[in-house]
């Protein structure tokens, strides 16, 4: 098994490590059994993802795919971000060894979950606003 230059580069210098306080969406995927856990945080302004950060427990590919997905979603609209597939993440990294493709799947899932979370929060807050209006 060999990692591409790009994977190793992202592994050595991962981009956007950390958490976002008051994030607009958070996606947490994976479990200790399979050995990879990813958390993805996004900040959204006017339908555009202005910031993305991650925290990951996992192998070289898991860290590199997390790093890459945060790069890919920045400055994208929500609709564009929904189109980002695991293959796109893997391709942007110059490919992944076959047994590591599941790491890119995890990155896609983390992103989808963060976007779901964003929509859910938006729905809840508008519902809350509605209730407030009606109560008022």
């Amino acid at each position, binding site marked *: *098994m060999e990692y591409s230059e790009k994977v*190793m580069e992202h*592994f*050595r210098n*991962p981009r956007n*490590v950390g*958490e976002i306080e008051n994030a607009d969406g958070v996606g*947490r995927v994976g479990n*200790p*059994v*399979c*050995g*990879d*856990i*990813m*958390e993805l945080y996004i900040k959204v302004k006017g339908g555009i993802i202005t910031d993305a950060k*991650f*925290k*990951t*427990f*996992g*192998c*070289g*590919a*898991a*860290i590199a795919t997390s790093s890459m997905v945060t790069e890919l979603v920045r400055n994208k609209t929500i609709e564009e971000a929904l189109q980002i597939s695991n293959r796109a993440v893997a391709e942007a990294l110059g490919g992944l060894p076959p*047994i*590591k493709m*599941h790491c890119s799947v995890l990155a896609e899932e983390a992103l989808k979950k963060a976007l779901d979370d964003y929509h859910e929060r938006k729905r809840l807050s508008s519902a809350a606003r509605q209730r407030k209006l009606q109560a008022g």
Partner: protein
Amino acid sequence: MKRIYLDNAATTPTDKRVLEAMLPYFSDVYGNPSSLHAFGQETKQAIEEARHIAARLVGARQEEIVFTSGGTESDNAAIKGVAYARHDRGNHIITSKIEHHAVLETCHFLEKQGFSVTYLPVDQFGLVDPEDVRKAITKKTVLISIMHANNEIGTIEPVFEIGRIAKENDVYFHTDAVQTLGHIPIDVNEMNIDLLSASGHKLYGPKGVGILYVKKGVRMHPFMHGGDQEQRRRASTHNVPGIVGFGKAVELAGEEMEREIDNLTLLRDRLIADITASVEFSRLNGHPTRRLPNNVNVSISYVEGESMLLNLDMEGIACSTGSACTSSSLEPSHVLSAIGLPHELAHGSLRFSLGRDSRGSDIDQVIRVLPGIVRKLRSMSPLYKKEVK
């Protein structure tokens, strides 16, 4: 950058003295040992000399040593060979959950062929309880296969006791000694061993050669059918340079064993003490004292093994991990699971296996870089922030 090799349990470099002993047997002394002419007799003599050296190291007779292609073949040959030859007597095999895949997968195969296999559990240190072996024996048991020492966590199994129990019950006892031959003392008679597997490249010999010790009188089917080599127990033209190299490696290992045990044990215990002292939330896997002189296996919480391994590799340090990330199953090491480690800790394991060339300065270098690597990875780990704050 000075590269530091701490993966000697995976393989060792061929000792220069071994290589030198082998070289004439490629182009200058090349006869087939099965040939009657002088060319053949020269190489015949060379392989018998190697056989003699190997037999002497384990207290066997020369004719009880069979040359094979390595540890995996020896394990396969022993287990399948005995299982099929004694099928008339029974179909039950006893082994442990922490054997090498060469043993486990062979047992899984035999299960599909109608054999029944008991996989004994181990305790938190990786030790098989000899009483469990005794209790598992039935009228149908034909073979017990328990490794001499575990390749991942270094635990040395109670083979003396297990050998005695096997003998009392008239069951063959096979042991995988791939990690121990030439590293710690073995006496097949004292240990009541009927079959023993070992490999050349784990003791500074060449890859592609090993031995199977088969006690006189043990019934087994040959693994390879063909010519009359090795008293018809293993057909195929002899790997003469490999066998000569094996003999030389065993000779050197025998001469240097005591000194090496002392040196490596000191280095091992220092590395264990230094890692557990300098890395918070780290622990030793395996037994604190009943372990191979060269084995250090630690689990480091909140970080994953492969990413530590890659970072160490960037610093020129080679080791290995029981993390699942290199296996397609995504399951962490069966050995670490068997000693009861939770998944997170099994994924966060590192094995450093010292060797003849290891020095104190190598340990110093590991301790210089490892804490920083762990810090960096923990700063990215979602597990760390949750549990520690």
